[in-house]
């Protein structure tokens, strides 16, 4: 459903993403992993056109979407969360979600109803009157997911939603992600917590230094010597060999 064709992006000559091609299938969970600075978040920013790509093409449901305004891309069915949370902090939790729900609901009442449903689904309903800035990090990350879901996306991009959470909270988030996926929303997630990605994703894509290193099921990825080298360093693989 989402396809990147030889996508490149450079910042002041530093190539953050080099000719990456990848495919994310509908109704599935796809993981994107790689060491820090591998270009994972840059890929998300290119898909949502917060960064303009230098080369390549991004195709979503057989339409070329690179160059479209972020709000148009959202309208086509791609929504996302941010690694550094960007909730509307001085607005109530409910209003945060209502703003997103207004995309597909013209009437204000319908938008509030939709927001209520989504907040319930993510277990935030009892916080609806609080300012977003008064939530803790875990709740604000859930709020970002709620806001993204309120736009009725076909594909949801999750950027490190589990970062900074404790093991119990991680289990809850994983359950939520599976539940979202069950409602027919494709999921493309960046995550550093390996056990979670391995467990959730049917397909994993590995990036290193802006290039695609490997792609496959979690079993294939964990056995791939290139991936092990990228994560644990050259010396480790030398010693092993």
């Amino acid at each position, binding site marked *: 459903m989402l396809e990147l064709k030889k996508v490149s992006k450079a910042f002041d000559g530093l190539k953050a993403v080099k000719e990456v091609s990848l495919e994310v299938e509908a109704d599935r969970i796809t993981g994107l992993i790689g060491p820090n600075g591998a270009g994972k978040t840059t890929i998300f920013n290119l898909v949502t056109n917060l960064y303009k790509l230098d080369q390549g093409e991004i195709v979503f449901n057989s339409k070329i979407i690179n160059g479209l305004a972020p709000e148009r891309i959202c309208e086509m069915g791609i929504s996302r969360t941010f690694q550094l949370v960007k909730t509307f*902090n001085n607005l109530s939790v409910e209003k945060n979600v*209502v703003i997103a729900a*207004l995309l597909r609901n013209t009437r204000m009442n319908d938008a509030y109803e939709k927001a209520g449903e989504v907040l319930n689904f993510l277990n935030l309903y009892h916080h609806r009157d609080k300012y977003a800035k008064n939530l803790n990090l875990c709740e604000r990350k859930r709020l970002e997911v709620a806001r993204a879901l309120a736009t009725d996306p076909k594909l949801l991009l999750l950027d490190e939603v589990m970062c900074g959470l404790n093991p119990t909270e991680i289990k809850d988030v994983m359950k939520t992600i599976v539940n979202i996926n069950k409602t027919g929303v494709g999921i493309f997630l960046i995550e550093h917590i390996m056990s979670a990605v391995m467990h959730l994703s049917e397909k994993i894509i590995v990036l290193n230094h802006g290039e695609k290193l490997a792609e496959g099921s979690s079993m294939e990825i964990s056995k791939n010597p290139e991936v092990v080298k990228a994560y644990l360093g050259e010396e480790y693989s030398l010693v092993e060999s």
Partner: protein
Amino acid sequence: MRKFDAGIFLIMLIFMLLYNSNNFVMGIIFQALLWAALAGSWNILGGFAGQFSIAHSAFIGIGAYTSSLLYIHLGVSPWLGMLAGAAISCMIGIFLGAICFKLKGHFFVLATLAFGQLMLIIAVYWRSLTKGSEGLSLPFNTGFLLMAFTNRLPYVIIAFLYLVLVISVTIYIDKSKLGYFLTAYREDDDAARIVGVNTFRARLLASGISSSLAAVGGTLYAQYMFYIDPINVFGINIAAQAPLIAIVGGLGTSMGPVFGAILILPLTQLLRAWVGGSLHGLHLIIYGVILIIVLFLIPEGLYPRFQQAFYRLIKREEKNAGTKKSVKGV
């Protein structure tokens, strides 16, 4: 809360009628009402969307000059001139937005400052049209159709209705999609766009509404003074006054500008009347000191502070009523 706002309006109305005989006080009330409305119109873009524009004087001036020129040269009623000014101002506001909304933060502020001063320069040097710094004097013919009166009360009533219009538009926007989108932009542009909000279009619309409302105030000012010159409507002090009142009263709140204007305008006028004669410029120094103290003590603005106090009062009363009831029940 609506009752609270309506109450404020009622008190203002009573004051106006009470002081009808006193021209000085009526003058202050007119200025306060006019500036409350002007600051309110600035607040639509500046408060909700956080777009800190210093070009509001441009739209006030366009309103004042459009209606005055139409009246002087073509004999068009200022009421119609007011609408023409609002329409022109709306278009220029959208045009200015289309150029400046791509700029972020301080650069936006500077660009609007430059635009406001550009309008001042145009008004000074386009002598064939505006008579330059000499200014425009309106003929002293009175009548309702000419929006010119010998008594100050009609002006005060018109200014009052103008304020009610601005507040109504603000309250409507606050509860509509547009208001939601503008606040989303203020909080985070990227996050707003990513959930499908066209923040650029929302701000253009807000700029059009804000500018046309400012132009209405410009016409009213010209009709009240019977004279306008570039510095009086396009000047930097006019440009700074609107944001100042909105900030003192409470940014992005519907009634904030009213509170700001109720404090600031009587303060300037009374200070000038009391200490203006004794030492040149002293009233401005006292004015500045008072403003700094207010902003230091109440950074969130007067209106939110009043609102909190009002809520607390209601809660206490409800509590008292509640305990009484329970006593009865026993």
